[in-house]
């Protein structure tokens, strides 16, 4: 398998607080990587450094042949002009914990916004593709609704469709189900499960151990800005070597593992 994403020694500090202490991760094409870790361990910051919503203090992310945000000139990382950076960012789909749908636009308008404005596709082409994506996430019936009229699970499925509309090389998910009522988690995980089986390269920050066990090819556990464990889902989740990872995971393992049921409408 060929490498789709590689982070090379990504470091990031806020003031004196070192949030990422040199992160090296590889993701292969078509692979699903789940990132687990306690709150505050730097998982969101890592995703945001990969797509350059945050500028890393050290290191860089490489996606499909390009260093994000920089051009490599000899041993210099030359910062890219903003329109080139945006072009790169548009190839990384991002799904946020709090959905971040455009609240003044309908579901359909949210999904066609990127293709029409950034990719300069014709409106009709974009609408046809958006309808197919909304069908895929089970939101066709609500294409004229505004985000304020949707449940959390519905919003997140629209947000996934919006990201997919850009035909990204990689999908990044930052705790996509953490802001949802428990009974709405399943419908979002179901959509992600289908994406994974269609061969989409995915990096998923999540607390859904069941999803990681079932869907992830590999699991990374981050603690205090470091990768403490990395490997196949089964071995990391059932037999972690690192004692702190063991302590972190024991919280989930003592509970009966819940297999999330699918209840998409």
């Amino acid at each position: 398998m060929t490498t789709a994403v590689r982070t090379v020694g990504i470091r990031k500090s806020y003031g004196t607080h070192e949030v990422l202490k040199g992160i090296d991760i590889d993701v292969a094409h078509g692979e699903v990587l789940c990132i687990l870790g306690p709150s505050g361990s730097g998982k969101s910051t890592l995703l945001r450094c990969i797509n350059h919503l945050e500028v890393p203090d050290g290191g860089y992310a490489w996606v499909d042949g390009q260093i994000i945000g920089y051009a490599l000139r000899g041993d210099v990382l030359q910062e890219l002009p903003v329109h080139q950076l945006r072009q790169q960012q548009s190839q990384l789909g991002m799904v946020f914990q709090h959905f971040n749908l455009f609240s003044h636009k309908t579901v359909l308008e949210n999904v066609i916004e990127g293709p029409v404005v950034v990719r300069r596709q014709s409106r009709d082409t974009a609408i046809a593709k958006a309808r197919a994506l909304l069908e895929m996430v089970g939101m066709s019936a609500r294409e004229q609704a505004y985000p304020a009229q949707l449940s959390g699970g519905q919003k997140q499925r629209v947000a996934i469709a919006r990201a997919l509309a850009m035909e990204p090389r990689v999908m990044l998910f930052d705790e996509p189900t953490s802001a949802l009522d428990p009974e709405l988690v399943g419908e979002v995980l179901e959509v992600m499960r289908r994406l994974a089986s269609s061969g989409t390269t995915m990096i998923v920050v999540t607390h859904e151990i069941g999803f990681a066990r079932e869907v992830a090819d590999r699991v990374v556990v981050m603690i205090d800005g470091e990768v403490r464990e990395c490997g196949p889902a089964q071995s990391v989740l059932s037999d972690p070597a690192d004692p702190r990872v063991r302590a972190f995971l024991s919280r989930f393992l003592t509970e009966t593992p819940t297999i999330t049921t699918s209840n998409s409408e």
Partner: protein
Amino acid sequence: MTQTAEQITDASRLPSAEGLRRRALRHPGHWIGGAVIVALLALLVRSFATGNIQWAVVGEFLTAPTIIRGFVWTLLITAAALVLGIVLGFVFGMMRLSANPVMRGTAALYVWIFRGTPVLLQLLIWFNIALVFPTLYIPGLIDAKMVAVVTPFVAAVIGLGVNEGSYLTEVVRGGIQSVDRGQVEAAHTLGMTPVQTMRRIILPQTIRMILPVLGNSAAGMLKFSSLAATISMTEMLNAAQRIYFINGAVIELLFVCAIWYLAGTTVLSVIQYYLERHFGRSTVVGARPSRGLRSFFKTREA
């Protein structure tokens, strides 16, 4: 009339729900208070009807050509100054949040000067600007005497518009800052440039938020346009003054003006209602997108 709720200690004596009628609490105070106010209003109407005011004259001048012409000028000043103020408000409001400190500073200076001095003073200064700059010369564009360019109308529009812009700068800045950061980040991850993000994501939501303030600005502008009377602009108030200097019907002509201003502000509040409904459609939970104005603004439907 007042009754204390009586104790029913024996639960078996509670009546069943059927057959129970409900009686609303009476509010005799509302009726008494209302009657007093209506009586006072009637007295007030009577005193105006029988007072030293000739209503026939009011009626006669309500549609006098001079007054109508004055009102049209009032509307023109209002519209032009409002547009200028809104444009300046958005330009300087965005500059206020620029990453460039020179831009930020310039916008802050603009607000400081024009919000910190009386608008009447500003009008007088614009009107007399020819005393500072006798000629207006922009190479290849304009070369003219200042007095010919800055007519009372131009001075009024610039004075009121620039002043309004300084208020709206702060309003726009606040509106932009209150747009959800997450949506801005989402726009970036879709690859939208800063200009696209501003135009398509931030500004539409800013407009929705500041619309009530803009409504106030419009009504305020209609009224403040009467200040232009002081710089010999024959808008409605000035026209009325010219008439009553001659015929002496002071109060009648002032009432004529009051009626027209009220008509203007009433129409404005109706427009504001529809605009807010149009821009607020995305915040109404459970509602369908409204038609009407929607198709008015957008020719192409999604």
